[in-house]
């Protein structure tokens, strides 16, 4: 327990340093755009592929589980939309990105630590934690909601393709279902979750990488810890946010 509290305290102290006043805004701005490309645009491919199949599978599974003649088939479209917007796009994408982006951040910063590049920054009088972590966190918090919106469209599009190329639901019913009883605040809820999750899957691996020490082996461990911890905290935070905003 003492060790847990020690690490939590260390994390918040690091975050305090990360969000302190940057030395040169122009350098941070350039790094922010670079990180947006690296964390966001470079993740578009994997997001699109996963979302497409996710939407298709939700549609098929919903259809397979509707066994009553009293449940209209447009429910399939409705369920696909609701599952995608409320849960799958923000949460599953965050878990995927925790693996892809999180491990990348932890190993990049960890390697900088063990090769003394972070010490070099400190000796130059640069706030190394802010310089390395702040642009990544801000970039992810800003870009992740856009990735989630793209994921939502592609996922619902995946369901549409199933409707189009199979006979489990007609295209008309599916389209009617995805428009039925649409609540815009669900999108706001999902995008808020996306930003919170982005903060988690960047800051926690960055924390693990920043305090990595020793050898390449330790960097590997830091990367694994970063992904595991951020995944668990994403799931826990998901529960808290859902309880607060949807009930």
């Amino acid at each position, binding site marked *: 327990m003492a060790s847990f509290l020690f690490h939590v305290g260390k994390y918040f102290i690091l975050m305090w340093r990360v969000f302190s006043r940057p030395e040169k805004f122009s350098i941070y701005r350039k790094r922010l755009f670079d990180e947006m490309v690296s964390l966001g645009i470079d993740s578009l491919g994997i997001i699109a592929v996963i979302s497409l199949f996710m939407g298709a599978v939700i549609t098929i599974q919903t259809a397979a589980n509707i066994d009553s003649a009293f449940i209209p088939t447009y429910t399939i479209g409705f369920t696909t939309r609701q599952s995608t917007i409320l849960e799958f796009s923000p949460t599953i994408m965050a878990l995927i990105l925790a693996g892809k982006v999180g491990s990348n951040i932890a190993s990049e910063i960890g390697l900088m630590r063990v090769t003394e590049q972070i010490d*070099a920054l*400190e000796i*130059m*009088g640069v706030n190394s934690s802010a310089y390395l972590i702040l642009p990544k966190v801000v970039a992810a918090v800003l870009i992740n909601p856009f990735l989630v919106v793209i994921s939502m469209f592609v996922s619902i599009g995946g369901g549409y393709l199933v409707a189009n190329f199979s006979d489990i639901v007609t295209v008309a019913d599916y389209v009617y279902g995805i428009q039925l009883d649409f609540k815009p605040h669900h999108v706001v809820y999902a995008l808020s979750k996306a930003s919170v999750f982005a903060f988690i899957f960047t800051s926690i691996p960055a924390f693990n990488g920043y305090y990595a020490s020793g050898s390449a082996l330790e960097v590997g461990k830091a990367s694994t810890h970063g992904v595991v911890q951020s995944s668990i905290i994403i799931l826990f935070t998901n529960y808290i946010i859902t309880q607060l905003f949807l009930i």
Partner: protein
Amino acid sequence: MIEVNNLYKSFGDLEVLKDITATFENGKTSVIIGASGSGKSTLARCLVGLVEPNKGEVLYDGRSFLDLNVKQRKSLRKEVGFLFQGGALFDYMTVEENIRFPLDMLTKLSKKEKKHRVDTVLDRVELSNAHKLYPSELSGGMKKRVGIARAISPNPRYLFCDEPNSGLDPQTSIIIDDLILEITREYDITTLVITHDMNSVMEIGEHIIFIHKGQKWWEGTKEEILETDNKELLSFVDASGFLTNKKNK
């Protein structure tokens, strides 16, 4: 000038530095020697604030480093250049960007002035054509030279070199040693070199400190080192093979 007074550092129960007192003068290359684990790198890290000592005083031209607040330390660090053992070049930047980085972060120089400064220091370390190369494309010796170029680019008053010859062939070692010596005299800076390479010590050491078991065991010049009867120092010098090579010559 850097003065160290009664410096102590422990990691848990392990006492790494015990009562170190020394003075490193301007325009001179001071060399700290000692076996691996003797505490010489920890001493350098304490001097630049990468490691916080438990007790003692570090004075940079009369300014007590340990008494400075975060902002004042940051400002003082702008006067410090540090050459790391592995170079510590930023992997994702080219040579030019690596050298320009401290200028971008710490100075208000114009683009033209920065370019001129980068060209000058790259010329100085004889790497005028390496601007666009990435660290992964450089040899060990080139990395050290770029590291020196980056360390001297903001015109530091104090230069620290941690094992500048490690992993280098004897010829490249001599080039790096000469470069450190020339830069120290040319810019009249306080240079402190951490090494266990006796050839390097005899090449550049104008003031030598031998650290043994975390304590300052011996202090003197390179001429005096050959005449010493200090048992531990003799054993260290002997183990380095330096005396044997000298006798064979």
